[in-house]
């Protein structure tokens, strides 16, 4: 029978001074969970891990295999052996949680963190009948909005893989945001609860996510926390929670791209972090290096058309309201002052000069499906 070597992390805080790895030879048959059970039944009954349903619904048995987070009952041994081509398979407990013993970690903390984001339905009495014998009507298409998030089984794979959890202990964790977002897009959930969730999400590190997308990659159930976090951010901005650097950066991107076709690195520190000196210092530094500095980019031919297309994209993603026209007008005024003419005149002039931004427009058209 084909076998493989598992190097399993062992640590009993009561007895061991430090963790160590123990090697076991297991059959390459069934799943990684089968292999762990094989060890417990036949080789070493002191090996400690969690497992229950053995059919990927209970979320007990997540571990790391050579650094990658895996649900043991969903991982065929054959696949592991093929992926790692004969190399030993190092089985370790999940990251960011205290090891209780061997592969068992303390999951109370992430559960407590999740709890702060109101991960339950707070029914709006105008939508959900209070009469228990009265059905609340939900159309199949409205359930599309949370069809992925409801698969979360609290296996904490994403929590283990998350970069933001590593950096920021307050950070609630990818799954917690997905659990929260599921109710943000449920029509039956009351508006006041939705607002609270956003507020708590922000203080729970909503803007700390670096969008590394690892959570999406490791989720055994196809939940996409990184996307849910982006959507929660969008909701935060829409609800007027714009006093966080993350929200201000998003605003800077949206407004400047609309106004000029690009972001403005000179103004970024000031608009995001309130650092007013940065612009002068950067300008000085660039000038000294002999780099030409444009305080604002010169409007190019086709800018107005670009704005139309960009707005269309934002509308399609339901983000048109993110655009702050008073800010855009301020940028326009700045451009007018620098180029001594109003924005339309400048654009017309560049038309006459024959300068073009064709590349940019065709790229945007591609995004819109060639329209």
């Amino acid at each position: 029978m084909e076998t493989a070597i598992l190097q399993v992390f062992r640590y009993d805080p009561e007895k061991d001074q430090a963790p160590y790895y123990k090697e076991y030879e297991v059959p390459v048959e069934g799943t990684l969970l089968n292999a762990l059970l094989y060890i417990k039944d036949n080789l070493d009954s002191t090996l400690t891990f969690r497992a229950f349903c053995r059919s990927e619904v209970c979320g007990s048995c997540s571990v790391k295999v050579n650094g990658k987070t895996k649900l043991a009952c969903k991982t065929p041994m054959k696949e592991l052996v093929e992926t790692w081509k004969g190399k030993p398979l190092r089985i370790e407990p999940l990251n960011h949680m205290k090891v209780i013993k061997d592969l068992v970690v303390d999951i109370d903390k992430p559960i407590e963190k999740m709890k702060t984001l109101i991960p339950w339905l707070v029914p709006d009495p105008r939508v959900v009948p209070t009469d228990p014998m009265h059905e609340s009507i939900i159309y199949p298409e409205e359930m599309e909005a949370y069809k992925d998030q409801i698969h979360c089984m609290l296996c904490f794979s994403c929590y283990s893989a998350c970069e933001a959890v590593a950096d920021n202990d307050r950070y609630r964790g990818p799954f917690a945001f997905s659990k929260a977002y599921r109710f943000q897009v449920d029509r039956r959930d009351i508006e006041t609860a939705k607002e609270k969730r956003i507020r708590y999400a922000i203080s729970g590190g909503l803007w700390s996510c670096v969008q590394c997308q690892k959570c999406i990659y490791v989720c055994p159930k196809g939940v996409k926390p990184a996307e849910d976090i982006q959507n929660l951010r969008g909701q935060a901005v829409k609800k007027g929670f714009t006093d966080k650097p993350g929200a201000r950066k998003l605003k800077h991107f949206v407004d400047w791209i609309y106004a000029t076709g690009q972001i403005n690195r000179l103004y970024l520190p000031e608009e995001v972090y309130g650092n007013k000196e940065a612009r002068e210092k950067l300008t000085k530094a660039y000038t000294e290096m002999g780099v030409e500095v444009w305080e604002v980019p010169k409007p190019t031919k086709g800018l107005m058309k670009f704005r139309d297309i960009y707005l269309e994209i934002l509308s399609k993603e339901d983000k048109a309201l993110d655009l702050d026209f008073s800010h855009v007008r301020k940028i326009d005024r700045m451009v007018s002052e620098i180029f001594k003419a109003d924005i339309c005149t400048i654009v017309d002039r560049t038309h006459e000069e024959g300068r073009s931004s064709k590349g940019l427009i065709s790229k945007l058209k591609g995004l819109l499906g060639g329209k």
Partner: protein
Amino acid sequence: MVELDYDIVIVGGGGAGLYAALWAAENTILKVAVITKVYPTRSHTGAAEGGINAVLTHSVGDSPEAHAYDTVKGSDFLADQDAVDIMCKMGAAVIYDIAHRGVPFSRRPDGRIAQRPFGGASFPRTCYAADKTGFYILQTLYEQCLKNNVTFFNEWFLLSIIHNGEKIEGITVWDIRNGGVHLIKTKAVILATGGHARVYWNRTSNALGNTGDGTAAALRAGLPLKDMEFIQFHPTGLAKTGILVTEGARGEGGYLRNKDGERFMKRYAPEKMELAPRDIVARAIQTEIDEGRGCGPNGDYICLDLTHLGEEKINERLPQTREHAILYEGVDPVKEPIPIAPTAHYSMGGIDADKLGRTPIKGLYAAGECACISVHGANRLGGNSLLDVLVYGRLTALEAVKYADEASETKPSAAKAKDDEKRILELMEASGKEKLADLRKELGNTMMKHFGVFREEKTMKEGLEKLMEIRERAKHVKVYDTSKKFNTDLVTVLEFLNLVDLAPTIAIPAIERKESRGAHARKDYPKRDDKNFLKHSVVKLKDDGSYELSWKPVTITKFPPEERKY
């Protein structure tokens, strides 16, 4: 030893336990705690796939009476009809309640809860949420418990039930995480510890921990267990692992075929075909296999054919089934039939409780699969277990609240806790001739071979002898892990010892019930015998460690027994 004091303690954090906790939390200011040996969302309710039966307000032509009749007929007339009546009438109320709390039931285009046909049902009344109904219910109930700040003691294992012969006084538990026995003083206890089909260790759809811990503790505390001989074999377990393929697969139109490609159900249940009740389909499959018409090189499985449903329907309605077939069987049901065989699935029997979930001990209740109310009789219909879980979770919670509100303080003695401490110490210090994994495998094989889909006096008697021998040898099982904290070696041994205590409670009434009824199919007595056996079996454990069998009448109200044909 830590001593704790609560008013109501719920043991088990699955569907019944969580729903009980929720209804208790919302309806009382008493101190309520849930004790569970795993984290609540790991519980096996999460593996229930197909759905939950209920007659809803828009179920035109259907009625709670029809549901009750189907349930009683499915039970082969062994269910207590007063209890069935309560359960079926409460169907809509619990469905709407959990829907209002957020369970994402699949919906019809008009926005109402969708229902599908299920085995043994005369109307399509099984509400479902894709093929993960139990999973969504469990998650939603957990969310709602968090919302209500329910106190959870996760990874605590029930050891003993303490009562004074009249009323409940407390329980003892093993704190898995920290190690140590705790005594919990309480006025009321709801046991919601799930089933014990793991007694068929090698061929079951159950989770690793469905070891009847509450049922075994009740047995040891002198409580009666009812109808234990009835174990449901689910017709469609994956051939290699016994992992479940939902009845929904047949509900959506799947065919069962033998090695000749024949839809053999036409010979067993010509009208209902694949959608006959589980006991009938399981026996049909076993017969096909036994008579040499099984598929595969060893002829030891049958084919569940979904290929004609098409990829789109399979992905939409049965996504998990497809995933499991690919992962655990290496077969894509879109392209090939799934190899299946019967697998031990559900315990109809359990702790003897009345139509409100009350046991003979005041303040002690049982709900869900660990209880035998009995609403399932000799055979449970698919989709009725989730309903049972919710209805009785809720009813026992309300009963417990009412009782605990008026009950006086209890004074459990610490003796039991000291005994339990001693017992655990002894396990760790035992000489250890016997190896857990081997003995457990032997138990599973004995149960499957001697008390499987078909039963016979001679083999059963041999089986019982073996079980008693295993029970003796189990005294010498050693726990190798001697650490206090998170000792899963100890926990699995305790679980095994529970199974060992329960196995004879299945075997003894199985031998004495000389008829075939529901899931209890005897080759030597192939007919139902209402004259002699229209009664519940009751098994108790005596002080000397022997088992005592007695019988108790069935409550019949509306539906007189008739021949069961599909």
